[in-house]
């Protein structure tokens, strides 16, 4: 028993003194927003992919890879029913996958996505929302790693082909990540994408993004990286004004999504989440994610020019 400390997953030195530091920053910078932003964002309601035209020309423009509202078409609905059951989202075991009628068979493209961000920014809530599960109302730190699989059929613009995306989200609690040193390597290993979350209501989570980006994804140059601003429904109370976001995007040239991981509509019983409504809430995110991942694959396969060759040219044009 005396040798047990040899264990690898012994708690790494855990910074215990960080409690409460985020409370101070919370109301420090109270900003007045130009009315135009408020109008724009509150009429948008839903979450969209932002792209800064020229500056991000190497990234696919929203809707350029995947047909945006295809899931609402008759054909799309037919495919969607493979991930629903009795109007609820279907939960798939690891041995299962969506079953399509033989005449509409589609290829599956699987991706591992690591969701990163400070404790409490809404990682677990986002993944639950994407999977059509109940969103946690109270913050419980995630224990260790949990992975969630989300199947999402989408139609490609170029080939008119339907692809079933299989997103495997890796979500780990920030506290667990700091405490156990086996967690971060496992999450990063062979990941296809990083989602960096910050919360619109937690300035420090936004300020931490550059450090996160280099700490977590510094050694993974050719993976998809996306920044996600969570708790967008709380935009009224935001600590992260639009101009800071703009500055950030210009500096980092990363796609940015705004999300609100709040419970969606319920079925007639008043309890069960309505699967279709939930999917409509998150379709833009799933499409955005699929778009970047698919694009990245095409670049890696040499089918389309990558950022390096492309970027200088675009800068001039």
């Amino acid at each position, binding site marked *: *028993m005396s*040798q*047990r*400390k*040899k*264990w*690898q*997953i*012994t*708690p790494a030195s855990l910074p*215990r003194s960080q*409690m409460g530091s985020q409370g101070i920053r919370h109301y420090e910078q109270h900003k007045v927003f130009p009315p135009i932003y408020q109008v724009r964002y509150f009429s948008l309601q839903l979450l969209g992919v932002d792209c800064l035209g020229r500056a991000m020309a190497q990234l696919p423009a929203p809707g350029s890879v995947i047909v945006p509202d295809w899931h609402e078409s008759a054909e799309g609905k037919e495919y969607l029913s493979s991930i629903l059951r009795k109007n609820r989202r279907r*939960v*798939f*075991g*690891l*041995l*299962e996958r969506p079953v399509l009628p033989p005449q509409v068979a589609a290829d599956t493209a699987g991706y*591992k996505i690591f969701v990163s961000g400070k404790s409490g920014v809404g990682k677990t809530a986002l993944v639950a929302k994407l999977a059509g*599960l*109940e969103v946690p109302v*109270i913050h*419980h*730190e995630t*224990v*260790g*790693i*949990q*992975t*969630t*699989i989300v199947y999402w059929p989408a139609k490609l613009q170029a080939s008119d082909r339907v692809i079933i995306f299989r997103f*495997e989200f890796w979500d780990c609690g920030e*506290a*667990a990540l700091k*405490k*156990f040193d*086996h*967690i971060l*390597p*496992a999450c990063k*290993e*062979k990941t296809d994408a990083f989602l960096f979350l910050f919360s619109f209501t937690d300035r420090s989570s936004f300020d931490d993004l550059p450090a996160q980006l280099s700490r977590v994804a510094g050694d993974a140059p050719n993976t998809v990286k996306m920044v996600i601003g969570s708790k967008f429904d709380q935009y009224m109370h935001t600590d992260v004004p639009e101009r800071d976001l703009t500055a950030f995007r210009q500096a980092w040239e990363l796609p940015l999504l705004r999300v609100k991981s709040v419970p969606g509509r319920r079925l007639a019983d008043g309890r069960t989440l309505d699967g279709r409504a939930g999917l409509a809430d998150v379709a833009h995110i799933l499409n955005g994610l699929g778009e970047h991942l698919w694009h990245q694959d095409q670049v890696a396969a040499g089918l389309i020019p990558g950022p390096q060759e492309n970027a200088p040219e675009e800068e001039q044009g």
Partner: protein
Amino acid sequence: MAEDGTSGAVHLLCLAASSGVPLFCRSSRGGAPSRHQLPFSVIGSLNGVHMFGQNLDVTLRSARTEDTAVVWKTFHDSVTLIVLSSEPGCSELRLERLLELVFGAMVLLVGLEELTRIRNVERLKKELRATYGLIDSLLGDAELAGDLTQCVDCIAPGDGPLLQEALAGFAEEVGSVFASLVVGGRVVVGTEGWWRLGSPEAVLLPWLVGTLPAQAARDYPVYLPHGSPTVPHRLLTLMLLPRLELCVLCGPQPPLSQLEPQVLERWWQPVLEPLRACLALAPRAIPAGFSLHPDILGLLFLHLEQKRAFFTVDLGGEEGAPEWGAQHSMEGGSRGAGEGAASKVSLLLHPRSFPQDPPAPPPLLLCAGHCHPLPSRSAGLEASQGVQSREPQVPSTCFPFLLRGGVIRGKGRRAGVPHGGSPGLLCGVWGSCQGAGGPGGPRGWAQAGGDPGGAPPPPAAGEPPEPNACPAGPGHSDPARSHPLPLGPQ
């Protein structure tokens, strides 16, 4: 303490022993988690009276009001747990065990060191939130009985050997000796190593897995309250099918990313049908195809040596003979039926029956309107070793274990119907199950059935379990049967 005359509320308080700071409070009412909280003043007084005694070198262990039992227990001079229960017939012993199990659950998820050397109360409070789901389930109405029996809840799969083989092969490939398949908190099959896990983790781990929300996979740091309370291990869970989890307990290796779908499919796709069959089995615990006497509303089989149990109050069939062959639909249907049955059955267990009394009495059969009480050494029953009458002639206080809220004894399906007794309730049942089930499955229990006259059959296992077979409670080790550190250092 009961509010508005509602019975069946349980409150659990957890406080830091030295400072009296509440760490958390959980409540359950009518078997479901409730938001109702005790007023702070009540919490303060409950802790105060306990501390007062302590200062005088008196340990206050329990108290009883008209309708409520209160039990205190301090663990490692660091954490005090207090439970109040107004469930009818709730015994102090049962509550004390509950507290031990709750503390076990706390160690399981945050580790003993955090609990015994509290440096930052706020931090600890946050970490303890991870235990809420498991603790709520322990307080409420789980479909499991491991908290009472201190045995691992199992189900007997139809294709036990096939699944066992797949599990062993898979475990070997991923390099862990601790692996099991768990459906709804019950173990379907486990590797030899898994069955060597000590108590209470053997009960708590599957229970925990059954309470966690659905995730495709998890890499969950756990501490083993008995085997490794201060050094974390990793519990990997892989949801092969909804509600069916493949669990692996391991050290730093293998990384979760190594358990790719290809590996899983290689081992588990060939046994997909047996796996699916397990899902339909979950609430009922024993395979279809057994015809049981219609008077049997529930079953509890304990293998005291192996510390495994079958427990079910979901034998299907609303009227007449239970339809074993009837397929329950996976969603909804079977659960509903189970709850219906459960609410009609009161399961009466005597706390002293196991596992402290090694030559333990046999499995208990439940029939509408009567039960077979278990002989016991406790007061009130001492003189009547082997009470075998159909009507229990023992005071109700001798049956303090009442499972499931709102249950009233004798309200069974045939309550009130005069009964001639049912000799050989299990006649022919176990004969037909030879060979079914995993290792240590029904084979060992075959003798348990077919005892005429309804008298409790002899102990299920051939030889009585040795006296040391009872496990150490959480937090202290039992030298007579000390468990090796489940995962030795590399």
